[in-house]
């Protein structure tokens, strides 16, 4: 970095050789000069202004190039594509912080149902509380704290589970249940229509398993167990 700056600045240095000398001279005589100017005639005042202008100009070029150099140095670390935050479900430990750490309420992290992996079970670990006796849709049987999972009978013995993402708070309770008893078809992901893509994701900061990273926006989802072609992208 420093080297780059030096290289970029050196032509200016050569071009304005005297600037540095001037700088030093001016620094040394700075205070006394000021007093002098009080008594200065018009011409000397003009002279002084010229000198200051010249110094400013030199500094301006240097600073301009410095800003350019920082820009260029940052440019070498340019990401070739736009990046967004996403979490890797295979690293997720369902700690519940996705629900609490997001700057948005409710969180921009939502549960997604990867239907292709679902077993369509009657006794769904992601839908029912562990202690449930009767497998009914009664609220006290539901694991989800906001009742965001909808259970629908398909045919004996299959049930389909849909997630109402407006209600989902991203707490991962169902993800834990599905992972423990089922195939892991319920997965947490950052919902990109809702995510503000903060400079530093506040959930990433709090995530204990370091599951968050910046991923290319073109493949912004990290569903486990299905290929990118298997899910349907929805235009923003």
């Amino acid at each position, binding site marked *: 970095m420093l080297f780059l700056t030096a290289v970029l600045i050196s032509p200016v240095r050569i071009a304005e050789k005297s600037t540095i000398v001037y700088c030093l001279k001016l620094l040394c005589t700075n205070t006394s000069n000021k007093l002098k100017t009080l008594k200065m005639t018009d011409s000397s005042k003009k002279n002084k202004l010229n000198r200051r202008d010249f110094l400013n100009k030199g500094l301006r070029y240097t600073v301009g190039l410095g800003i350019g150099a920082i820009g260029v140095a940052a440019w070498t670390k340019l990401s070739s594509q736009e990046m967004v935050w996403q979490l890797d479900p295979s690293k997720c430990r369902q700690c519940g912080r996705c629900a609490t750490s997001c700057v948005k309420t409710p969180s921009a992290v939502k549960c997604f149902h990867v239907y292709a992996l679902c077993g369509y*079970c009657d006794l769904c670990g992601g839908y029912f509380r562990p202690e449930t006796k009767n497998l009914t849709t009664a609220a006290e049987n539901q694991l989800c704290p906001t009742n965001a999972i909808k259970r629908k009978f398909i045919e004996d013995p299959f049930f389909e589970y849909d997630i109402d993402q407006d209600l989902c708070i991203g707490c991962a309770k169902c993800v834990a249940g599905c992972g423990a008893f089922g195939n892991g078809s319920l997965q947490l992901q950052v919902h990109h229509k809702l995510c503000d893509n903060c400079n530093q994701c506040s959930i990433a900061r709090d995530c204990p398993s370091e599951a968050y990273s910046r991923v290319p926006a073109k493949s912004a989802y990290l569903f486990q167990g299905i290929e990118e072609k298997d899910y349907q992208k929805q235009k923003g």
Partner: protein
Amino acid sequence: MKQKIIIVSSVLLLLAALFFIGRDFFYEKNKNKENQYEYDLSNLKETDSSQICYREVSRILPESDNLYAIATDNKDRIYIAGNEKILVYESNGNLLETIELKEDASAIKISPDAKIYLAMNDHVEVLDSMGVLQDSWDSPNDKAIFTSIDASETDVFVADAGNKIVYHYNTQGELMNEIGRKDSLKGIPGFIIPSPFFDLAIGRDDELWVVNSGRHAFEAYDFTGSLISSWERTSMSIEGFSGCCNPTHMAILSNGSFVTSEKGLERVKIHLPSGDYDCLVAGPESFDEGTKGIDLAVDSKDRIILLDPYNGNVRIYEKL
């Protein structure tokens, strides 16, 4: 004067803001130590010690990165399928021999006439008692995932979780029958297999027991494929089978009782031939969280041999 008060209080407010930022950044660490949304299975994972009817007597630590399946023969030797090999142990846990394989075997069974039957994901291999390959049978269907195999002296049954069907072969490898296809006229409900665990075993009276895990059910078929009997127990508590698809494995004791293993709530239990829960072999505390696919075998003395694929050990249990 009024201005002065406003300025002083404004500056104080700014300093307070600075103080808040500094304190929040440096001292408020790990604010929420606990998971507010814990998926709490602790009640269900607690084991009532009075329920336990078996105790662990010894443990084998096979030298293999992964362990897949376990079986015993009529001399009570223990066969363990690991990475491209089978490890054969004496009943006291001494390693007898190692049989090299070309692939991993997902299930293993030693027939009464001492042939080694291996289910290899999508085909069956038959080895003689010395471990020499005798025969290999391909799967009749695509997308096969063979998960279990059992053999008598005349018949071989293979469970295919991919096609959710049981194949009935003779010992020459000819496909005799497909068992368990949904047929409402015959009262066969069809297998529901949401995860790749699908076990079967031949019972005492030459009936074939198949685990219909999606229904938490055991179904008995005769060798022609007719459903003779079935029972199911769905419950998160210890009386039944939990989750989407349990039990994952089973074995049959000499009195006709079933030894079952579950995932989700990792436990190994005994169910009576009627299906009613009898007692507990090993509770969730005996396994690591997330252990799936505890394979089971029973020897002639009704010892239970279980394979913990997560920690890579084999444990031998005896009745209390």
